[in-house]
């Protein structure tokens, strides 16, 4: 005889069966992601033997920090962020200017990018992730974390695809209405809220750098602040590009109010004031900004120093085989493969472009050539830019 309670027991039993089946056959996007966790321990210093420097043999260490980064690092306020490739995933490592690992976070080993961005509340680390949203779909998400503490500030926010390399702008898959590139979404780095979305008939999203959003419509580039106030509009041709070219080309932040438009290596980049839309310099190879002296520096066949409003401050010679390596901490550093003292590195003052005498790097640092990034703290990155080493600040 059937027990009267059997019907009541069947329901949870069946639900349990269903839940089990769903768990083992539905989407399982668990890839070991984790939000930042505090570390606060020193990163490993480079083994003296690895420098092949006889002078360093037998010493305790080189003073150069090797955080194990496997891609180019980004920096703000003296905190550097890059990632270490593990077999099972990516470990993001934030390291301060003294070489201390502040926090680490895990993400799947996918190509989606990451970004260090300025925001109203300080520098933000934007990390991507991929999550299951239903039994037959995944979602790409972005989250913002305090770069120094690793504390979550916003997210996860669903985005249409990977970061593009032009600020906090994400690209979706190609759609007919927009041509070859997919529709883009720009997020507010402070809140993660959507600031702009490309739809049929809407302005195109060009870049979002810090507190400046650049859109395009009918041949014009339009500069906005993040509250949506239009700052300027300018025919894209005035900046030497079409709207399509401006959309496809990379935009690199130079300080908090300027951007370098164009591909590295072509010598045809334009330094643009994002507050006015005016071109500070054209035909540029590289550029940088020194906050201490409030100087923009560009290179072509020479070096040039500008006030932020574009007023020329100084010119300086640049050897034929030299290039601008980095600007920061009051310095302009150029490097060359051969032919210069200190392994081809030359250092000038950002304020006036004059050579800085008597500032030689230690031999174990100098052997890596010119630094390719200097934080205002003085900490700098040397070696292969795709697996950089950190020289901590001397303070």
């Amino acid at each position, binding site marked *: 005889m*059937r027990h009267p309670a059997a019907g009541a027991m069947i329901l949870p039993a069946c639900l349990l069966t269903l839940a089990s089946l769903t768990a083992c056959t539905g989407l399982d996007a668990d890839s070991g992601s984790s939000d930042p966790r505090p570390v606060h321990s020193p990163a490993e210093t480079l083994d003296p033997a690895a420098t092949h420097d006889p002078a360093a043999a037998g010493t305790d260490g080189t003073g150069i920090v090797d955080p194990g980064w496997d891609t180019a690092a980004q920096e703000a306020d003296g905190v550097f962020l890059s990632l270490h490739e593990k077999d099972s995933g990516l470990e993001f490592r934030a390291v301060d200017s003294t070489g201390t690992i502040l926090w680490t976070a895990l993400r799947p080993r996918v*190509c989606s990018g990451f970004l260090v961005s300025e925001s109203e509340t300080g520098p933000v680390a934007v990390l991507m992730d991929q999550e299951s949203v239903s039994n*037959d779909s*995944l979602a790409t998400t972005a989250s913002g974390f305090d770069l120094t503490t690793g504390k979550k500030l916003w997210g996860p926010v669903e985005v249409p695809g990977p970061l593009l390399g032009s600020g906090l702008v994400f*690209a979706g*898959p190609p759609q007919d209405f927009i041509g070859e590139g997919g529709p883009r979404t720009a997020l507010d780095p402070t809140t993660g809220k959507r600031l702009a979305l490309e739809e049929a008939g809407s302005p195109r999203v060009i870049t979002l750098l810090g507190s400046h959003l650049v859109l395009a419509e009918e041949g014009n580039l339009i500069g906005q602040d993040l509250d949506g106030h239009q700052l300027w509009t300018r025919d894209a041709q005035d900046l030497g590009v079409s709207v399509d070219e401006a959309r496809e080309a990379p935009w690199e932040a130079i300080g908090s109010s300027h951007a370098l438009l164009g591909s590295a290596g072509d010598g045809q980049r334009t330094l643009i004031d994002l507050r006015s839309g005016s071109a500070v310099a054209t035909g540029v190879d590289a550029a940088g900004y020194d906050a201490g002296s409030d100087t923009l520096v560009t290179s072509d066949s020479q070096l040039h120093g500008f006030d932020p409003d574009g007023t020329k401050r100084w010119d300086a010679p640049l050897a034929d085989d030299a290039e601008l390596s980095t600007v920061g901490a009051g310095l302009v550093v150029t490097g060359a493969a051969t032919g210069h003292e200190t392994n081809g590195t030359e250092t000038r003052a950002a304020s006036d472009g004059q050579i800085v005498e008597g500032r030689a790097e230690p031999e174990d640092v100098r052997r890596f050539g010119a630094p390719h990034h200097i934080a205002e703290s003085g900490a700098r990155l040397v070696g292969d830019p795709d697996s950089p080493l950190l020289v901590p600040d001397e303070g």
Partner: protein
Amino acid sequence: MAEHAAPRPQYRWWIPAAVIAVAIALVAMILLNDRGQDADSTATSDEPGEPDVVVTEVEDPEQADVDTSGSDRADDPLADGPSDAPVTLVVFSDYQCPFCAAWSQDTLPKMLDYVDSGDLRIEWREVNVFGSASKQAAKAAYAAALQDKHWEFHDALFSDGEPRSPDELTPEALTEVAEQIGLDIDRFTSDMNSEKTAEAVAENEKMGTDLGAFSTPTFLLNGQPYVGAQPTSIFVDAIEEAKKGQS
């Protein structure tokens, strides 16, 4: 769908169907149970098969998932392996993605061993989230596949486990690759620029975007997603497990 466009991966559509079926059965069962208590409880007790029918509906949903072979599966130029292989691996990739290149170097050879043994079918899908250069490369790879040289072309684009830069994915640069691996260049050029190829590449992209595979590489192994270029052992274990499930 274009002539050579691949079929969409078979997702677990049976799960919501099973949920609905079970929900209906549960409601019916509870109603029957209540009615049985009010009326002829002996008759109800003599029907032990009822709850079993419900469980069978749920426990055997794979029956609905087995028939994944579409008529055009054999014609997919970006697929390798028998269309009735016990395990299918759909790879969502991008020719500008370093981790796709790394996975191709580290893990793809082992996967192709499974293809050779008839245990695995690989279906390659370019999602082209990194833009126009990726899409151009996808069209070129598709054109190479139409001459049965997909893997040779793929290996050339991911040589040494590294992706090419965008300026190495121009039509001219891709045609040079085609020459290097001995393709019929006239046919390659025609196929790379054809409407059919564009449609097939777009269709393959859509499979990835429908899934939400905007971060690459992403995989579907017998419908189960795997995100990222995880170690080879993860894929080997998953394939072995899937083989057991099919036997």
